[in-house]
C-alpha cells in the first residue's frame, strides 16, 4: 500500500505540474495576444481606415504579393484590404461553401470549379454583377483583359443556367495548356525536330524504345488534365460545333469521330509514347520528371515555366501545340487562371470594385506577373516575357475552356469520360467499349434532367 500511495502522490504532483504548465501556457498566450492588441491600441489614436475590405483566396504562391499590393493600396487610398489564405483548394472550397450557407462570405473571394457552381453562387445572390462597371467609358475596364479571360467570368444572354447576363468576375491571370519538348532528349533519341503531325509523333515511340528515353509525362492521375488533352483533339477531329452538339445530347459519344478521339490514347499507349505509370501520376510528379530530364515531352500549363525554372534552371525545352490529327482548328485548353468575385451582399461594394479595378491596372498586373511568373490577364502588359512564356502568351487567342462554352457537360459524364480514357491507356477496355459506357451515363443524366 505504501508503494501505491507514493505512486499516487507522485502522480498528483505531476498532475499539478501539468495544470500549472497549462495555466502558464494560457497566460503567456494571453499576454502574447494582448501585446498583439497593444500595437493596435497605439494606432487607435490615429484615424483608423474607415473601410476594411476582406478577401479570401487559395493562391499560396501569391499570398505575399497580395499582401504587398494591399499595403500599397492602403498607402495610396487609406482603404485597408485584408487578404486571408485558405489552402489547399479543396479546403478553400469547403470554407467558401460553408460561408455561403452562413452568409459570412468576405467582400472578395474566388471560386474553383465548374460554371454550374458559379451560376448557383450568382443565383443565390453571392456574386455582384460587374457589367455596369465593366462597360463604363466604352468598356475601358473590360477591354483591358484577354477576351478569353473575361469569357470565363461572363454569363451570356439566354444562358442555360438562367443567370442574368453580365460579367461576374475580375480575372487575375490567364493560362493555357500546351506540349513541351526537351531538346536534348529528342536529339539523344535521334529526332531532329518536334513532331508536326500525329503520325510523326507516334513514330517517335520506336526511337524512344531504342534509346531508352521515356515519352510523354503529364498529370493524368488528375483527371482534368486528361480531359484537356481529349478536348483539344475533339476540337481538332470533329470541330467545335459537333462537340457542342454532343454535349447538347444530339450526337452520341458512340459516334466514330468520338471513338477516334478515344483511340488516340490507345495509339499512344501501344506505340510506347506514354511514360510508364502516367495514369496515376499527379501533375507535380510529372513536372518533377520533365524538369529532371526523365521524359522527352510534357503536356502542361503555362505555370510550368516557373516550376521548371526552380527545379532545373538549365533545362533546354520548347513549346508546341499538340501535333494535329484532324482537319479542324485545334484549340488549346486555357482562359482565366484565377479570378476574383465581388460579394453581392458586400457592405463596401463600390470600394471593393475600385480596389479590383486598381488591381487590374497595368502596374499591378505587371508586378503580379513578375513576382509569380504567370501570364497577366491584362493583355497590355505582356512585355518582358521569356521566349517560352511569350509563346504561351501568343497562343491565348487560340484557346478554349468549358466555362466559355454555351452548354456544359454533366459532371458524371465527364468523370466517366476521363476514367474511361485511363482504362484505355492501361489496356483494360477498348475505345469502342468506353464510348458505349460514356453514352450510357449521358443518357441516364439526360433522363434525370427531364424528370426534375
Amino acid at each position, binding site marked *: 500500500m505504501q508503494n501505491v500511495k507514493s505512486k499516487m502522490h507522485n502522480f498528483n504532483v505531476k498532475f499539478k505540474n501539468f495544470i500549472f504548465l497549462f495555466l502558464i501556457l494560457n497566460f503567456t498566450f494571453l499576454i*502574447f495576444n494582448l501585446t498583439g492588441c497593444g500595437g493596435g491600441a497605439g494606432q487607435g489614436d490615429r484615424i483608423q481606415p474607415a473601410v476594411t475590405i476582406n478577401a479570401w483566396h487559395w493562391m499560396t504562391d501569391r499570398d505575399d504579393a497580395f499582401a504587398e499590393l494591399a499595403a500599397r493600396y492602403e498607402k495610396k487610398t487609406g482603404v485597408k484590404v485584408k487578404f486571408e489564405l485558405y*489552402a489547399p483548394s479543396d479546403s478553400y472550397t469547403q470554407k467558401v461553401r460553408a460561408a455561403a450557407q452562413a452568409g459570412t462570405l468576405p467582400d472578395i473571394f474566388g471560386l474553383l470549379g465548374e460554371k454550374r457552381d458559379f451560376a448557383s453562387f450568382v443565383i443565390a445572390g453571392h456574386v455582384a454583377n460587374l457589367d455596369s462597371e465593366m462597360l463604363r467609358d466604352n468598356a475601358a475596364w473590360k477591354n483591358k483583359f484577354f477576351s478569353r479571360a473575361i469569357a470565363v467570368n461572363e454569363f451570356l444572354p439566354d444562358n442555360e443556367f438562367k443567370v442574368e447576363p453580365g460579367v461576374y468576375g475580375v480575372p487575375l491571370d490567364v493560362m493555357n495548356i500546351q506540349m513541351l519538348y526537351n531538346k536534348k532528349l529528342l536529339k539523344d533519341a535521334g529526332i531532329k525536330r518536334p513532331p508536326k503531325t500525329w503520325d510523326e509523333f507516334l513514330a517517335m515511340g520506336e526511337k524512344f524504345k531504342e534509346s531508352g528515353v521515356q515519352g510523354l509525362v503529364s498529370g493524368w492521375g488528375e483527371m482534368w488534365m486528361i480531359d484537356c488533352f481529349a478536348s483539344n483533339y475533339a476540337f481538332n477531329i470533329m470541330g467545335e460545333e459537333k462537340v457542342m452538339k454532343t454535349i447538347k445530347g444530339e450526337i452520341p459519344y458512340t459516334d466514330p469521330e468520338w471513338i477516334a478521339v478515344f483511340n488516340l490514347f490507345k495509339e499512344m499507349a501501344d506505340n510506347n509514347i506514354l511514360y510508364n505509370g502516367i495514369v496515376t501520376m499527379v501533375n507535380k510528379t510529372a513536372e518533377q520528371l520533365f524538369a529532371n530530364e526523365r521524359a522527352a515531352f510534357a503536356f502542361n500549363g503555362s505555370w510550368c515555366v516557373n516550376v521548371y525554372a526552380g527545379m532545373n534552371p538549365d533545362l533546354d525545352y520548347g513549346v508546341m501545340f499538340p501535333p494535329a490529327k484532324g482537319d479542324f482548328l485545334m484549340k488549346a485548353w486555357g482562359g482565366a487562371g484565377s479570378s476574383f468575385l465581388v460579394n453581392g451582399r458586400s457592405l463596401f461594394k463600390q470600394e471593393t470594385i475600385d480596389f479590383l479595378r486598381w488591381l487590374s491596372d497595368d502596374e499591378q498586373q505587371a508586378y503580379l506577373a513578375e513576382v509569380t511568373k504567370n501570364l497577366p490577364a491584362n493583355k497590355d502588359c505582356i512585355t518582358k516575357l521569356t521566349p517560352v512564356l511569350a509563346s504561351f502568351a501568343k497562343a491565348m487567342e487560340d484557346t478554349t475552356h468549358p466555362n466559355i462554352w454555351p452548354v456544359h457537360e454533366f459532371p458524371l459524364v465527364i468523370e466517366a469520360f476521363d476514367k474511361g480514357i485511363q482504362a484505355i491507356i492501361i489496356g483494360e477496355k477498348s475505345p469502342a467499349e468506353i464510348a458505349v459506357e460514356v453514352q450510357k451515363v449521358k443518357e441516364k443524366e439526360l433522363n434525370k434532367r427531364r424528370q426534375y
Partner: protein
Amino acid sequence: MDINLKHIIIRRTKLSFIYVLLSIVALTCVFPLLWMLGSSLKTQSTVFSDPSLIPASPEWNNYYLAWTKGEFGVYFLNSVFYTTAVVFGIIIISSLAAYGFSRLKFPGSNILFHMFLAAMMIPLPGSFVPLYVLVNNIRKVLLEFLTAISPFLIKIFPAHFVQQSIAFIQHQAFPRTAYVFCMINVGLSLSIYILKTFFDKMPGALEDAARIDGCNKLGIWRHVALPLARPALAVITIFNALNVWNEYILAQLILSSKETMPLQRGLIVFQGMHVTDYPLLMAGMTMTAIPIIIIYLIFQKHIIKGITAGAVVG
C-alpha cells in the same frame, strides 16, 4: 550437456531471428524519416536529382528560411496552445465519462455509451457546413449579448477597454475556444471507448480499498482510477496530440484569421497550387514532427512503466 547446448542454440537462433525481424521493420520506418531529413538539406534543383540520402553540402539555411517564411513562430505557439487545451480537455472529460460508464450505475448508461460508440463509427463528411453555421450562430448570439451589456460595462470600465475586450473575444477568444471544443468533440468518443476498455479490464480491489478508506467517487477517480489507467491515458494523449497537431481542415473552417491558425498553416505556404518548395516543405515538416516525437518519447514511457507498480500490490 548436449541438451543444454541444443537449448542455447535454439535460443540463439530464435533471438537472432527476432532481431532480424525488428531490424527490417525498423529500417523501413527510419528510411522515410532520413529521406525527409536529407531532402530538407537539399535545394529545389537537387531534391529529386541528387540520389544521395544526405547531400554533400547541406543547406542548413533551409530551416531558418522555412521558419521565417512559414511564420512558424506564431503558428507554433498556437499549435502548442490548441494541442494542450484539447488533450487536457479530452483527458479530463473522457476519463470522467469512461469511469462513469465502466464503474458507476445509472439508468441509460448503456444507451449513452453506445451512442458515443456509434458516433465514433459514423464519419460525417457533410457535417462541415452545419458545423460552421452552428459556430457562427453561437458567435452571433454571443456578440449580441456583449453589445447588449456593453452600456453597463462602460459605466464600470473605461470605454476603450470594453471595446477592446469585445474585439478580443470576437476575433481571438471565441474562434479559439470554438475550435478547441470542436476538436475535443472529434477525439472524445474514441478516447472514451479506449479508456472504458482499460477501466473494464482493471481489477476493482484497489478502488474498494480506497472506498473503505473513505474516498468519495471523485476521489477514487482521481487517486485510484487515473493513476492505474496511466498506460491508456498515455495512449489517448499521444493519439489526440498527434491528431490536433496535424489538423488543418477544421482549423481553416472555424478560424478566420492568420493570427489564430495552427502550425499546419505554415506548411501550406510551401505547397502552392503549381509549385511545391520541397526542401523548405521537408524542413518545415521535420520541425513540425519534432514536438510530436518528444511527446511520444515522454508518454510512451508511461505505457511501459505504467501499471507494473500497481500490479506489485495487487
